[in-house]
């Protein structure tokens, strides 16, 4: 086997060694490769070569089937990915729609403490009391505005306001 390739070995070795060392390295390589050339390996049997050719002929149709299978698997994988992406998208869309509906509910006028409470009866009673008191205050304010409390209007309004604040704070404390 002559000249494995057209490489300039000396030039190659000189990239790592000085000129003298590179020359010696090239000699080492050439002499060792000469030994390999002088000791050729056995050749493969003709029967083996014939057998390999038969094996190749057998493997060729299998390769076509395998290629078809690979294409089929790829198509199946792409289809599965598309289905999965579509399913996830639909799910996400539904979720985001649901979340916007919830936002509307939380901005309603119902106090959160009552909304989340399980004691419906007590809450209803509290609400009834609050409503009654607010109505009473309303009528008293109206009476004051109409001048029905004998000229002591300013003090009465202040008292009413204080009462309103007190009721309100009592209510929210539960």
């Amino acid at each position, binding site marked *: 086997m002559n000249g494995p390739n057209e490489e300039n070995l000396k030039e190659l070795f000189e*990239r790592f060694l000085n000129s003298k060392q590179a020359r010696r390295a090239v000699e080492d390589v050439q002499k060792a490769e000469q030994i390999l050339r002088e*000791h050729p390996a056995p050749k493969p049997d003709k029967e083996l070569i014939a057998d390999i*050719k038969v094996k190749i002929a057998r493997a060729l149709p299998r390769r076509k089937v395998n290629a078809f299978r690979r294409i089929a698997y790829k198509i199946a994988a792409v289809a599965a990915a598309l289905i999965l992406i579509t399913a996830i998208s639909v799910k996400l869309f539904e979720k985001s729609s649901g979340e916007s509906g919830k936002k509307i509910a939380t901005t309603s006028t119902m106090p959160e403490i009552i909304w989340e409470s399980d004691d419906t009866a007590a809450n209803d009673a509290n609400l009834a009391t609050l409503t009654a008191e607010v109505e009473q205050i309303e009528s008293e304010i109206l009476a004051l505005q109409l001048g029905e409390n004998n000229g002591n209007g300013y003090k009465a309004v202040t008292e009413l306001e204080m009462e309103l604040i007190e009721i309100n704070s009592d209510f929210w404390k539960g």
Partner: protein
Amino acid sequence: MAENDDLAPMITGCKKGAPECFSQLVDIYASRLFGYFYRLTGDNEVSDDLLSELFVKLVEKISSFKGGSFDGWLFKIASNIFYDYLRGKQRQKKLLEAQKKQLESNKQKAQQSDNDRIDKLQIQLKKLDVDTRELIMLRFYSQVSFKEIAKMRSEPIGTTLSKLHRGLKKLRELMN
């Protein structure tokens, strides 16, 4: 070393699944690849098996050859097959037994002049570590450039040169 231009029509034919093109490649490369496997395993039967495995693998992999040095690409597959073979526990055991047998029979054959030279090389090659032996055989049988070998082995060219130089120097000393 087969030129890529000469090989191009054969490779194209192989990609299309033409058996005669594969046959041509077998005729061109079988000797060198067999020599490569034989020098690494020291066993005729194992070399036969590995050579068959290589060409069957070539049928499967030819479509993945995208150009460049075909020799380098083919010997890379051969190298992988050799290392896979070594990795197989059972096979490794078999190799050791085969090597033992080989060494014994080689000693007996050592008297005969012609065979003596061949066997002597095989005996001395066994004294090198697998990696160095593989590198020497890859260089000798694949006939690809050092640059290509370094690329195949994923190591710097300086490392490849240094390993090969040391290995060949040691082989020379052993042979002398």
